[in-house]
């Protein structure tokens, strides 16, 4: 499979409204890393929804992992979705579950045994600096802590595709840089990454190509280096 995501003249509208996305055609190759930019309301979250199978295009075709989603049967969705990690813009943590259980959910739905789940989740939560907050309810966590729970949940099952919608919206630049570092670590392990963000300093701190949405249309700006090379230029911060 030489492409993770492939869009061909994709259009999307909500109900009878105008097309918020028009004629999107692009491919994401394995191991690529993109920022997704655009003004508020430009359609970043909408494009993300198409990629994490929460929406079907109103026209054109979307392929994920080499499969045209128009041909998917209902039972095929879980298999594909398990390869995709999503950090939702509004987190969407389950409010009645602890940080631990939220992060454990992707492993539980895929049938992993509790003993292994415990090991993995504790390891990851410690890695994102939430070892003290494992038993906390989401509402008792700060915005930035919730965001890290959401990120941990998105990456716990080692997705092939990571889609993060404003993952640094609630944190200061220092934590934003650390989170970016986490995504780059994952990218180095082979995960294809798309990060939607308004954060100028985050974008300028690296040389990953930029997908830009404007007026419903997409343009891609390649910056000089390959993503793999940019990772090496990043300062090594400690764990998050």
């Amino acid at each position, binding site marked *: 499979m030489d492409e993770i995501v492939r869009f061909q003249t994709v259009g999307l509208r909500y109900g009878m409204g105008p097309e918020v996305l028009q004629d999107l055609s692009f491919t994401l190759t394995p191991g690529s890393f993109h920022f997704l930019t655009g003004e508020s309301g430009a359609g970043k979250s909408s494009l993300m929804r198409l990629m*994490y199978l929460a929406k079907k295009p109103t026209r054109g075709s979307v392929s994920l992992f080499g499969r045209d989603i128009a041909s998917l049967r*209902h039972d095929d*969705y879980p298999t594909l979705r398990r390869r995709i990690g999503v950090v939702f813009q509004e987190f969407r943590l389950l409010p*009645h579950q602890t940080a631990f259980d939220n992060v454990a959910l992707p492993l539980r739905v895929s049938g992993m045994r509790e003993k292994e789940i415990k090991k993995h989740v504790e390891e990851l939560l410690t890695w994102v600096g939430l070892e003290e907050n494992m038993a906390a309810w989401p509402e008792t966590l700060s915005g930035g802590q919730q965001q890290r729970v959401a990120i941990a949940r998105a990456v716990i099952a080692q997705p092939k595709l990571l889609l993060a919608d404003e993952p640094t919206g609630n944190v200061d630049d220092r934590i934003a840089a650390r989170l970016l570092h986490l995504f780059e670590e994952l990218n180095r392990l082979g995960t294809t990454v798309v990060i939607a963000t308004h954060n100028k300093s985050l974008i300028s701190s690296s040389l990953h190509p930029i997908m830009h949405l404007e007026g419903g249309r997409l343009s891609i700006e390649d910056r000089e280096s390959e993503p793999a090379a940019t990772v090496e230029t990043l300062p090594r911060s400690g764990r998050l």
Partner: protein
Amino acid sequence: MALLSRRTDLPFERDDSSRYLPWLTAFMVFLASLTLAGVFAISDLAGTWDKGLSETLTVQLPAGEDERTDERRAAAAIKILEATEGVEEVALLPPRQVRELLKPWLGAAADAGQLPLPQIIDVEIDRDGIPALATLTEQLRRAVPGAAVDDHGAWMSGFLRALRSAEAIAVLIFLLVGVATVGTIVFTTRAGLGVHREVIEVMHLIGAHDRYIAAQFAVRSMMLGLRGAAMGIIAAAMVLIAFGVLVEFQGFGVLPGIDLSLGAWIAVVLLLPATGLLAWLTARITVLRSLARMV
């Protein structure tokens, strides 16, 4: 069972939509238990009466001018009866017994032996009855003018038919209660799906199969159903026991077999697992069908 011990991902404790399910189920199971007990009681009753009465026939021969006529007539009738298909045993009641039988109507006159008494023949017939009852009556009348055949089965069969239709109605009510229970569970489960829509969507997006989500609803529904069924059965058992005691005290003994057989009690208790299974299955199917329509 790992399925039962597993904490659920859906916040059912905060879900008001299922608060009344155990009570509704309790009520339904209460009704179902009483109806089921009724079905068993009626069925037992009908069986007893059916066996006890429909297997006999009485032939009455009018009194003759003298004893010899009587004897001749009786012999003729018995001969015809014994030759009839379906007849098992024929017994001529001794005059003393006939007199006893008629005493309430004839008073002392019957005792005096002055009145000519009819002769009565008890006939036992086999389970399937007499195929040609009309022919038999015809034959008897020809041999003994004025002979009468009293077929208990005739009026009994009317009574039995009434019992059988009461039984059918009870079965119908039982089934309707079952349908109403299924409807209640479907309704509650749908409401739950609405309440938990957001969580279900996130679980879907994370890659949960419909089966995984449905299993949680099904186990939840089963637990609520079992709780309700237990309450309903206990309440019904108390009513049935109280009714039994009452019947005994009031001496309604004319209705044989009113106290419940062991089979009836077993059937009522089996409503517990049956309700649990029904609740589990109904919720599971409801969730799977609803989720199949979601993306």
